[in-house]
Each structure stands twice: as C-alpha cells, then as structure tokens.
C-alpha cells in the first residue's frame, strides 16, 4: 500500500541523514582543528624543580668520602659561592627588595661556578639558616643567576630589528594603493625633473617620485606610529614566582665546619619577562 513504511523508505531516510551529516562534516569538521593549550604555573614548577636539583648539587651539598649527602648543605661551600648576610631579619620585604634589585651585584653568580639553572630566566636563590634567626641576627645566603643573552636575543631586542619586523608584519599585501600613488608621483616627478634636467632629469624625477609615493603610501599613519612605538617598547612586565617567601621553600639542613647541623630552607624564585 502506498505510504507504508518499507525497508526502502528506511534506507532512503538513512541515506538522507547520512547526506546531511556529510554536509555538516564538510562545512564544520573539515574547518575545525584540535589544538591543546596547557595552563599552568610554569614559574612555580621551574622553582620547585630547581630547588630540588640544587639540594643535590655537588657545589652546595656536604660530601664525605666521595659520598654526596642530598639535602645537607655545606656552609663552607655556601660561603664561597653566595653573598652572605648576618643582619637581623626585621623585615622580610626589605630584604627581598634589596635582593630583587637589579643592581644587587654582590650576589651575582657565575654560570661557570653554578652550572644548574635556566639560561633564559632570572633566578634568585636564598638559603636561610632558621636556627637563631631573629630580629638581631639571621644568616642568609643569597645569589642571582642572570639570563644568558645570546646573539639571537640581542638581535631580537634591537629597536631596528623590532621596527622592521613590525613593518613586515603590518604589511597587508595591498599593492594597489602604493602602486597608484607611485604612478601619480612618478608622473609629477617626471614633469618637474624634465623641466629642470631634460630626459635624464625626467627619469630621475620619475624614479624618486615613484619611490616616495610607494613607500609613503605602503603603510597607514597608524601603522607607522605603532611600529615606532613597538621599536621603543621595553619589556617591563615580569612574572615573579609566588615562592619567594621565607615561609616557603624546601627544608634543608646546613652543616658548619664545627660539625653543628642547623635547620634551614632553600627558596628559589624565578622572574621572567612576559612574552
């Protein structure tokens, strides 16, 4: 009977649904890409990893008969490597301000002396002796590892490079506008050049006019302004890891020459420019 649900009706409907899904796939899925994005506190992870590495590092830890004692720092080695202060810890923020100051030269560590650390990041290392640490006296060792600037970094930080990079990225491949101005100014330049210097003058006038017209109209005033600003932009925004407090950090022991062992903490802070 006409209108009955037959197998062919079902197959036809299935084909229709399949066709609709195919169109959907072509329209959306073929244009859709899966990408992953990782959100994390990189600085914190870097700090914790580095602090863990430092408490096993041969330049810091106590050694006896060729045996490395992880987590036990040798005060003699720390004295040789770090800036040491014994002033009282009245105000933690005051101390941090001093250490975090870029002009803090006493604590600058050489990468040759301490071969652990991220080359691209500024790293602050504090080791604090918590025994008898009070307002009058507190032993703290501090050091700063500055980023190693490579030739690539120098080039990328150069204002000339930044300007031309910005101009290159700003160009929208619209050749019509500068070409039209080139032609217009070339004609004007040729007439003026021709009046002054004959055919040679006309040629020079045309070339100069075309170049001025082309370059002048290749970018908008806003693009020029943006790239001049970009060239002079200095990166001031910094990410500072949160683990920069004496209440945090990894617990360590500090062994002195007389054999006494004190309780302490190692704090590693990472500072890096915002990309």
């Amino acid at each position: 009977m006409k209108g009955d649900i037959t197998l062919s009706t079902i197959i036809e409907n299935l084909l229709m649904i399949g066709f609709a899904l195919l169109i959907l796939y072509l329209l959306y899925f073929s244009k859709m890409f899966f990408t992953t994005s990782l959100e994390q506190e990189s600085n914190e992870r870097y700090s914790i990893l580095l602090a863990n590495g430092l408490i096993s590092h041969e330049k810091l830890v106590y050694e006896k008969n060729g045996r490395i004692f992880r987590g036990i720092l040798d005060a003699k080695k720390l004295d040789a490597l770090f800036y040491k202060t014994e002033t009282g810890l009245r105000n933690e923020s005051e101390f941090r301000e001093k250490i975090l100051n870029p002009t803090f030269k006493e604590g600058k560590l050489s990468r040759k002396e301490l071969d652990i650390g991220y080359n691209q990041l500024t790293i602050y290392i504090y080791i604090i002796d918590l025994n008898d640490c009070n307002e009058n006296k507190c032993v703290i060792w501090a050091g700063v590892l500055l980023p190693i600037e490579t030739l690539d970094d120098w080039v990328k930080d150069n204002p000339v490079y930044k300007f031309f990079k910005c101009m290159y990225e700003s160009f929208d491949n619209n050749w019509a506008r500068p070409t039209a101005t080139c032609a217009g100014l070339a004609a004007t330049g040729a007439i003026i050049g021709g009046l002054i210097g004959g055919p040679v003058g006309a040629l020079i006038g045309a070339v100069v006019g075309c170049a001025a017209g082309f370059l002048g109209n290749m970018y908008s005033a806003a693009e020029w302004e943006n790239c001049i600003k970009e060239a002079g932009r200095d990166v001031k925004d910094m990410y500072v890891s949160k683990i920069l407090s004496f209440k945090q950090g990894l617990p360590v022991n500090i062994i002195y020459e007389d054999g006494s062992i004190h309780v302490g903490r190692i704090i590693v802070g990472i500072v890096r420019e915002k990309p």
Partner: protein
Amino acid sequence: MKAQLFKKWFLSLFFIALITALILYNFLPYFFESVSLFLSLSAAEVVADQLATLITASSVAPFYIEITYAPSKEIKYDVSAKNRRLEVKPYYNSPVTRDITKYAFYGVNLPDFSFEKVNIFSITKIVENSKSIYSISASSSD
C-alpha cells in the same frame, strides 16, 4: 489519505532520528573523550614540558639515574635543544590537528642535541669526579 501518508513519513523519520540520537548520545562522549585524551597526552606542549621537566628532575639524583620517557606509540616527534631551550614538533598526519612546534626550558648542563622522528627518550645522569654529566638518547618505537 495525504494526512495519513504524512503521518507515516513523520513517524518513520522521528524513529530514525531518535535511534540516531541515542547512538550518537552514547558514542560521541566516548569519541571526544578518546580524542581529547589522545591529543592531551601526545601534544607537543605536553611532551616539551614533560621532557624538559624530566631532564631537570634528573639533577635530583645524587649519583646515577636513567629516565625513560615514551609519550606516544603512534606519534613521532622532532626534538632539538639549544642553550637549554627544548623544541618539540609532532607529526600527527591527521587533517584535524596541526603540527605546531612548542618549547620548554630545562635547567641542567645537557649538551645541545637534535633528534628526528622519535618517540622514546632516555635521559641519563652520572657523577664522575664530583661532576654531574648528563646525556640523552632517543629512538623510534618502529
């Protein structure tokens, strides 16, 4: 007669749509979960981060450590490191993923290296004469 025909067509379409929806309802979450899990575990950003972390973490061992890391059986990676900056480029061979290079930093004195189309990594640290020496090797699961 026309109304009856419309009713039958409507019913047939309705039931087919219902069955399709039920199948998709069960299948799609599983499909997307599998895809997202696969992509998150094998993503270049994840591999770069994990590998850089493991390289730095190898410094924790006081004497000797060997770490093997195999992020994916299916995906191969180009991995290179220069000046303690690690770059990873995956080869998905898929139309819905992009082979974007990602980077991460590591913090130990491992010499610069470069590997092509690999997916098994082995990081070693040894201490000789009170000096830590790091090395890395890589191979393909094929």
